[in-house]
């Protein structure tokens, strides 16, 4: 009978914990802590799924969101009025940290948990930076716009669109804002993916069924393939080569909440795993990759006020660790 050692040239290793999956594809080991045989594999078919994350401390819709899945920031938002609250996520739970200086919601928020920017929104032309501890006011944008797309880092960012149906596109260079070439179609409550250099403006309103998608190539906005489910008030993250948008709503004749998640491969949009809780006006870990992002807060019955604390984590890993069973 063929043995593992005969085929591989060595025996199965006994390990007290699983090794890093990316570095061990095709390898088998015995996990002595759980007494099972395991293997690392590369996923051929998508295994994308949303799971429950730690709930926000406070109900809110329309918060600014940035960071990555395991280290995210939730800035401001709306709960019957604009909020200054800021919460940080550590991959398990949220902690309240120092407030924004000015209440804001539906802002453009980008960067990482330790170096972020929250700009424009219902708060007007406000622009605040976060150093991991506290927020500081910096040079205001040229005009206040509600629900712009926002991408980039603390010192290289971009905000585009926003109400009322704006085509404006402004870049932040660490010191000031400068106007650059406009969007082709003015929109607000845009889903955003990308960086200051290359970005996507996905869907948005009006109309509240818009499926338009435009790509910023560093110089101008170009129309690219539409999203499959036209909607407004989505959240996004990822890059122009691998982006994701999730949630939102479309109407009339009545408000329909979206549980749809769509991923962008640089050319077209594909539907992937649905949210557990369909909702709109959410925040997201804006700077997370499309394979591992976070969606939090939002509204489950607009136009009313059932703001929520729900947080969901999206995972579509390229590799997995599997337990080997006799079946």
């Amino acid at each position, binding site marked *: 009978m063929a043995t593992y050692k005969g085929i591989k040239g060595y025996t199965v290793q006994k390990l007290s914990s699983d090794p890093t999956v990316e570095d061990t594809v095709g390898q088998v080991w015995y996990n002595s802590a759980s007494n099972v045989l395991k293997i690392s594999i590369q996923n051929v078919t998508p295994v994308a799924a949303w799971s429950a994350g730690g709930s926000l401390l406070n109900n809110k819709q329309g918060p600014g969101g940035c960071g990555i899945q395991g280290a995210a920031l939730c800035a401001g938002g709306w709960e019957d009025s604009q909020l200054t609250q800021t919460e940080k996520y550590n991959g398990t739970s949220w902690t309240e940290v120092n407030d924004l200086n000015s209440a804001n919601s539906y802002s453009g928020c980008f960067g990482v948990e330790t170096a972020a920017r929250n700009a424009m929104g219902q708060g007007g032309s406000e622009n605040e930076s976060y150093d991991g501890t506290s927020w500081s006011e910096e040079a205001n944008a040229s005009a206040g716009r509600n629900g712009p797309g926002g991408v980039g880092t603390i010192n290289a960012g971009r905000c585009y669109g926003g109400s009322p149906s704006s085509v404006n596109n402004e870049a932040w260079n660490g010191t000031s804002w400068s106007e650059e070439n406009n969007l082709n179609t003015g929109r607000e409550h845009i889903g955003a993916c990308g960086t200051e250099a290359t970005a996507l403006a996905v869907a948005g309103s009006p109309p*509240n069924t818009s499926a338009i998608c435009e790509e910023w190539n560093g110089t101008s906005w170009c129309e690219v393939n539409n999203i499959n489910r036209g909607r407004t008030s989505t959240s996004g993250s990822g890059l122009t080569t691998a982006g994701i948008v999730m949630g939102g709503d479309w*109407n009339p004749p*009545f408000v329909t909440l979206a549980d749809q998640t769509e991923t962008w491969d640089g050319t077209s949009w594909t539907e992937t795993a649905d949210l557990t809780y369909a909702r709109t006006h959410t925040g997201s870990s804006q700077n997370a990759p499309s394979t591992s992002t976070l969606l939090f807060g939002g509204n489950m019955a607009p*136009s009313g*006020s059932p703001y929520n604390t729900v947080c969901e984590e999206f995972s579509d890993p390229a590799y997995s660790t599997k337990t080997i069973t006799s079946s």
Partner: protein
Amino acid sequence: MANLYCVAVNRGKGFITSQDRNNFDLRGYPGDVLVVEDNAHGVAWINREGTTKTKAEAQAITDAKVDEYKAAWDALTEAEKTNAPSNAGANILQPQKVTLP
């Protein structure tokens, strides 16, 4: 696809795992109602996290919660409704009844 109905309060991390989502479908609705795919994994998840309801019971719970939302919305002034950032632009729409699948 046959469905099961339950009430389960989202307790955060671990409430629904990626493995759960790969094993069965589920959707959340107002009133902490969840509609769960009827298979062995879905049944086990309800036993772990929730309380089983009939479809009619689950629908009544969701209806009552949406009625709460409607009442809160109706109590707002026209100005408050207009200025609410979640309104549907020019179409000011009240929260809608949800029909469970």
